[in-house]
């Protein structure tokens, strides 16, 4: 194993790391949730480039299509639906010492992880090099991932279909407007359905 690093790969890595961490910082600190979503796009895009740098071409494409194309758009859609004018008060602390405790937890976690990486060194991954699913340079990345997905992990793959079905049904059930929040009035009034925004909606605190 040569320990020399290809300078192009190193430059790519540091630029992407900068983009990823800048985006993450934006997600965590910006007051406006829309700015957080834009920071998330930067982070996800940087990670897609890092996937590409590691030879996972299919994952890079899927990352851009699924994450930035679907998930972030979904989040932004809900953000717009609920009103974009709400700004978070980042400085307010509902629980005393919440920020200090969060910093403590995050730094402790970071210390543990970094220590693991340093102490582990070259033995950080245990196990032997793969013999059945080795990454071969003369076959395309998509073909290799697809073969593994439909042979070794086909049962897990089927389970994800079930999971997605459950998620879709759950989302429909959750987001469906219930007919009324009030207990049903007398049956005679059922003939003329009342207009939807019911009593409860009107008196909910507006921001």
């Amino acid at each position, binding site marked *: 194993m040569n320990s020399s690093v290809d300078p192009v790969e190193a430059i790519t890595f540091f630029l992407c790391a900068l983009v990823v961490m800048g985006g993450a910082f934006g997600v965590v600190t910006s007051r406006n949730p829309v700015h957080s979503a834009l920071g998330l796009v930067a982070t996800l895009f940087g990670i897609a480039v890092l996937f590409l740098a590691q030879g996972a071409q299919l994952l890079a494409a899927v990352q851009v299509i699924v*994450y930035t194309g679907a998930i972030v758009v979904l989040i932004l859609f809900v953000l717009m639906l609920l009103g974009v004018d709400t700004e978070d008060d980042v400085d307010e602390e509902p629980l005393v010492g919440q920020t200090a405790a969060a910093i403590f*937890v995050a730094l402790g976690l970071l210390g543990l992880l970094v220590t693991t990486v340093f102490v582990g060194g070259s033995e950080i991954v245990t196990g032997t090099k793969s013999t059945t699913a080795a990454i071969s340079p003369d076959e395309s990345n998509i073909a290799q991932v697809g073969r593994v997905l439909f042979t070794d992990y086909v049962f*897990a793959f089927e389970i994800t279909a079930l999971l997605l079905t459950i998620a879709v049904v759950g989302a429909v059930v959750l987001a469906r407007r219930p007919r009324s929040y009030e207990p049903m009035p007398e049956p005679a009034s059922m003939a003329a359905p009342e207009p939807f925004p019911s009593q409860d909606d009107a008196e909910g605190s507006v921001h």
Partner: protein
Amino acid sequence: MEGLNAGYLMLSALLFCMGAYGLLVRRNPLVMLMCVELMLNAVNLSFVTFGSMLDDVAGQAIVFFVLVVAAAEVVVGLGIVVAVSRRRPGATADDIRTLRG
């Protein structure tokens, strides 16, 4: 350790902790969901790095399952956010405590 693998793992650890911090500090449920996405992406990055360290495609296959779980989580989470904020516009994560009887 060969090449930049340690750097990738460091970046992954940093991103994970940043996401955890945001999840603990922020109270807007949508921003909390975004922080969960940050953490999941950090894990994805380390999966791909371990995969390339072990020269194994399985590291990339597992990222697919993480991706599916993340999509399902976001869909259900956004459904809950929409359902809650229909009753209480501008609700934060702390307002969930009004569920207590």
